[in-house]
């Protein structure tokens, strides 16, 4: 598989992972790329290999196996896939594969669901965020209970709503790229459907992505945060990571060149939180 390393995890605690690119720390922080619910993580790793070489970044692809993390896309699911990813990254730091610090996070389909919820719950560990074609989203609406909104409910995991409300400004203070294929408009079996969600989020992944971008931008302004959100319609692409990567170079959004700290001019990310104003993009 070329420059791809498989790392065995611990069932239910640390997910298995594919490490694409250097297995020793590079100057740049790693990128974590999360698979969709079809769990085609190995093919995704192969499709990302060239990109890892281009930008000299390590790309980590966790594999949330269906046995341990059936609903991993919720992040704060029963078996806490969010803590699984944190444990994986801790292990990779300890083993010397990546440096400690924030990482970029990207996800496709269910992986994008996971990615935006993970970054919202743990905003301090994630830098740039790339979200591609999730079937549905958590919106910044306190009137609507988690997981559709950030409201609290009386049921279990009502605490998640508190986390999201508390973290809103911190979550929004980052570069977020939302991508979706222009032909990803099928209401397939993996798209969550229903009167309430259709009314709240729209009928297709394209509509839902646009509405979420609008909602996030407005929420950022309300929170006094300058939104850094961009929307990319991937022309000629449906709901397939491979198609998006081959036809529309989704891999370039998924794993962008590392930015460097304007303060210390190092590629490697500062350990302190630095706002986007303090960062500049390096040449690809």
């Amino acid at each position: 598989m070329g420059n791809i390393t498989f790392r065995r995890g611990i069932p239910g605690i640390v997910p298995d992972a594919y490490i694409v690119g250097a297995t020793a720390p590079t100057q740049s922080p790693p990128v974590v790329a999360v698979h969709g619910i079809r769990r085609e993580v190995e093919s995704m790793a192969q499709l990302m290999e060239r990109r890892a070489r281009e930008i000299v970044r390590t790309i980590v692809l966790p594999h949330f196996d269906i046995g341990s993390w059936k609903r991993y896309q919720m992040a704060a699911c029963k078996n806490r896939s969010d803590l699984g990813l944190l444990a994986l990254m801790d292990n990779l730091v300890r083993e010397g594969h990546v440096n400690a610090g924030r990482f970029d996070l990207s996800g496709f389909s269910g992986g994008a669901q996971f990615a935006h919820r993970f970054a919202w719950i743990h905003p301090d560990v994630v830098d740039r965020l790339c979200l591609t074609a999730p079937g549905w989203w958590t919106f910044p609406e306190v009137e609507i209970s988690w997981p559709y909104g950030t409201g609290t409910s009386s049921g279990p995991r009502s605490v998640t709503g508190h986390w999201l409300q508390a973290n809103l400004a911190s979550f929004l203070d980052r570069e977020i790229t939302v991508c979706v294929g222009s032909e990803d408009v099928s209401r397939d079996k993996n798209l969550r459907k229903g009167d309430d969600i259709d009314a709240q989020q729209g009928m297709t992944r394209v509509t839902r992505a646009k509405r979420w971008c609008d909602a996030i931008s407005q929420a950022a302004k309300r929170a006094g945060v300058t939104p850094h959100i961009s929307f990319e319609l991937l022309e000629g692409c449906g709901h397939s990571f491979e198609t998006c990567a081959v036809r529309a170079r989704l891999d370039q959004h998924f794993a962008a060149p590392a930015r460097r700290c304007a303060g210390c001019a190092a590629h490697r990310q500062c350990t302190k939180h630095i706002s986007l104003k303090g960062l500049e993009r390096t040449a690809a």
Partner: protein
Amino acid sequence: MTNLSPIQTTFSAPTDGAKWSYVTRRVCRDEAVRLLPDTDNVSTGDLVLAEVTRIGNHKRLQLADGRFSPLWHGDRIVVACADRFAADQFEGHASFEDSKADLLAGGGVAGTAVSKHGKIGRATEITILGRLAGPEGKPINLAAFALSLRPAALPDLTIGVVGTGMNTGKTAAAAGIVNGFARSGRRVTAIKATGTGAFGDMQQYEAAGAAQVLDFTDVGMASTYRQPIARVETGIDTLLAYADTSDVAVVELADGVSQVETATLLSQPGWASRFDALILAAPDAMAAQGALAWLKKRGLAPVALSGLLTRSPICAAEAAETGLPVFDRDELGDPATATALTNMITAAKRQAA
């Protein structure tokens, strides 16, 4: 001619074979070489050697090394003279009647019980054999072994845990917060700032992942009850200064917010500014409402509720009507809650500014 062998006299320390209690843990035992029989002028913090004469409420002694030791009639124990405030046990004062005294707390506090909770039996009775003293005859006091003063300093984040009373879940809440921040990779110091010396809370903090645990015994007090408030305040500031190498300090104030020392501290304008946030532990929603109102009068607003009320979903739901998030121990121990608390505190500071 009679061959006289010289008499071999062996001087043993007065505490040989005695059980040293938790509150004596900082004391250099080698210094206790004399026993002063006079106990009339005993001061709080003075170490005394006592003999157990009747086993009562406290059937075990907390040893300095963190173990329990069952008490036996005739046991000799090293304890400190101090006051005690415990709504569900004893109120006691730092004084002895002749040589008779009560074991007021299992951590090694001796004094005279002045009242007790109705469900509690009589105190374990002890006979004071004398005050321990150094070679010059100077009584040994815990204050002599206190941490040295340091310039005022605070860690990046200091969270105070207060409660509506004793046994309302403060320590569980504090341990939860410690665990959450420790799991998110922060170095945490846990501090029991006021109360009566006992190792239970310290062990809870340590088990939760605290890198450093401190209490008022580290600043020379076996109990903070009826201590001059300036001494308590200086003690807390010293403990906080020792926490400045940590990312986070979690500080538990004993008993309820209306307990005399806690109330005095919290009522002093600006005193609570040492804390970036307060978390209130309560047994039920109404108690929480009362404490919130009491705190509000002093310009203080906790950022979250916890405590015994979290064991009951209907209590927790009722408490959530206050508009504050309600976190149980496990939720506080979640790294995600640690992150959320940090952001809540940041937002509250921004709003206040």
